[in-house]
């Protein structure tokens, strides 16, 4: 157990050396049609291509017209973007996903910050030290600042949205199917507590079961390091985490976790400052807890995936520096 844990530690170290996985790239997925997914070594699926058919992005179409101006009120452009996304316009799907995410974040932020301000006022000022009072004042000031920014965004772009228009899960699915890595990362890694509308749409769970691993596979083929990290974490995770849909789907699988940690380490080992021995070290540690065949299969898979999908894309393939399913005030939506 300890040795397996240390193998994971080494893999964890690899992430520190990986090039920024949030490095900017051309933000929106290409609107050029990519009808079928190319063959891959089976990321996200030990047994091959059971999910591959679903991994293929649905038919993309060339964007037929420019997107609405950035900053346009979402309530006014929602229907148009949704209609375009539904017929395969990747740029529209991506824009819709990012705009909804930003509005969700802004509206949630306003509410949360009200609580922060209230909490900061809870203390008994007569007993508080100058330091405590100073920190409390600073907290309230920061909260007010962010409230103002969120409020500005909510007023300018997020006003008059119907509750259903803030449901991000189906929108993330569509954008992910059409090639948006941010949306794929969010959809695949979506916590239950982020899936607004899920209570009224239990069928989304079935959609998730059908699509998540396929989308993960497709994102891996696009060189998405964030997805590698998500899958590694999910397969390695033990215990019971009811809010983690991805882990419910993957279960715990040390052999699969090894594949993804191996892939991560390959990226690190490419750096001239990193000795090749780090790979041997990882393999030696893994041999303490995994059968040789599983390690060989993992090595082969990782070598192939790295060569085909990541060696030419060491900087990752996400658009945002925010975390998965996180949206900032100033994030530029895809155009």
């Amino acid at each position: 157990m300890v040795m397996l844990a240390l193998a994971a530690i080494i893999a964890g170290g690899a992430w520190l050396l990986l090039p920024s996985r949030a490095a900017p790239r051309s933000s929106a997925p290409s609107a050029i049609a990519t009808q079928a997914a190319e063959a891959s070594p089976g990321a996200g699926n030990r047994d091959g291509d059971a999910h591959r058919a679903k991994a293929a992005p649905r038919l993309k179409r060339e964007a037929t017209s420019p997107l609405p101006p950035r900053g346009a009120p979402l309530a006014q452009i929602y229907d148009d973007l949704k209609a375009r996304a539904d017929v395969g316009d990747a740029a529209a799907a991506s824009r819709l996903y990012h705009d909804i995410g930003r509005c969700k974040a802004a509206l949630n932020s306003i509410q949360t910050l009200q609580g922060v301000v209230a909490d900061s006022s809870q203390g008994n000022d007569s007993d508080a030290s100058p330091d405590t009072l100073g920190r409390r004042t600073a907290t309230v000031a920061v909260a007010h600042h962010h409230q103002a920014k969120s409020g500005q965004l909510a007023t300018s772009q997020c006003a008059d949205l119907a509750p259903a228009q803030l449901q991000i899960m189906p929108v993330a699915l569509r954008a992910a199917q059409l090639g948006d890595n941010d949306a794929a990362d969010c959809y695949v890694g979506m916590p239950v507590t982020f899936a607004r509308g899920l209570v009224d749409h239990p069928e989304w769970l079935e959609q998730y079961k059908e699509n998540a691993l396929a989308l993960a596979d497709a994102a891996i083929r696009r060189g998405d390091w964030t997805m590698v990290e998500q899958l590694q974490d999910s397969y390695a995770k033990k215990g019971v985490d009811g809010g983690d849909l991805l882990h419910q789907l993957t279960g715990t699988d040390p052999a699969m976790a090894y594949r993804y940690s191996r892939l991560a380490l390959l990226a690190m080992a490419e750096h001239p400052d990193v000795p090749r021995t780090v790979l041997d070290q990882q393999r030696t540690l893994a041999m303490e807890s995994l059968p040789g065949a599983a390690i060989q299969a993992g090595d082969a898979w990782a070598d192939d995936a790295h060569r085909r999908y990541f060696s030419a894309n060491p900087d990752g393939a996400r658009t945002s520096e925010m975390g998965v399913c996180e949206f900032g005030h100033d994030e530029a939506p895809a155009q």
Partner: protein
Amino acid sequence: MNDVSSRSKRRRAAWAFIALVAAVLTGVAVDAMFFASAPMAMKPSAAAAPIGIASETETGMANDAGKRTMLRSTAVPATAALPPRGTPVAETYAQLKIRADAGDATAATRLYHDLQRCRMARTFQQMIDERLDRELPNEVDPHLSVLEIKRRQAALASMQEQLDFVRDNEALCAGLGDERINSIVPASLRAAQLGDLKALDCYVGSDMGMPGLLDHPEWLTQFKQNIPNLIETATRRGDWVAVDLAHHAYAGAFPDTPRGQVLGADPAMDYRYLRLERLGANGAFLTKLDRLLEQASRPLTPQQIDDGDSWAQDRYARYFDGSSSSEVSNGATICQMADD
């Protein structure tokens, strides 16, 4: 952030990390032996509290017998003694579930609490595995600061508590598969329906951190159907935790969570629950609630405010009996083992 700078920092951090791992490789065996033989005097705080199963003979509601009205309609008297405490859940599960399904509140609450223990033990085991990675390697670093050493000691003590909990419940949870563990969701609902307030708070407040949900979408429908009644029932039994959970949901604080989705933002309802909470508050908690009440009342009509005040005063007088709401002033603890 400057990307080049970021990468440089990552590389430096990674090199330090790798050096650390290499150093630790030789020390792992020693450290593992130390950890395995460490004193086990401390009990996890989660496990230290008396087990709520003491309430098995009273359905866990010793202090509010007069208030348990709503959910008891489907409860039936226990027909037989429960299995001895500590009997493996794998052996008692089927019997307890049949009895719970038939309305035996004691069986329902026993099943819920046993499953909760096993779920917690698994979670602790996972945490131990993960923390071992972090905490043990640096034990061999001779340059640790005093503060860092103290932090490590505290971390190890905490891990020891968790490990004790895992070991204490090893027999109880032996042979329990994922499917049974995941059934904590319907088990908590059943126990809540039969009057277990701890189960109720957990079911309502955990926002369906539902293991197994992916294979049981029907749990969403059940959640939606039951939440409003469960909150109402808990309020009528003087449960401040449920009042606080309702306030947060109606305030729109968690619009994405299932609880937030089911109840929805509703300023008038938020005002009612806040007003009720304030009637039981004291000290600094009053200041916070006054501010929240001021915010919540802004969109309300005078009539809505009057109705909310009347509703809260009536509820407080009838069901809360002068009790203090300060227990939830810094957030409620739910789904922990404090009751066991």
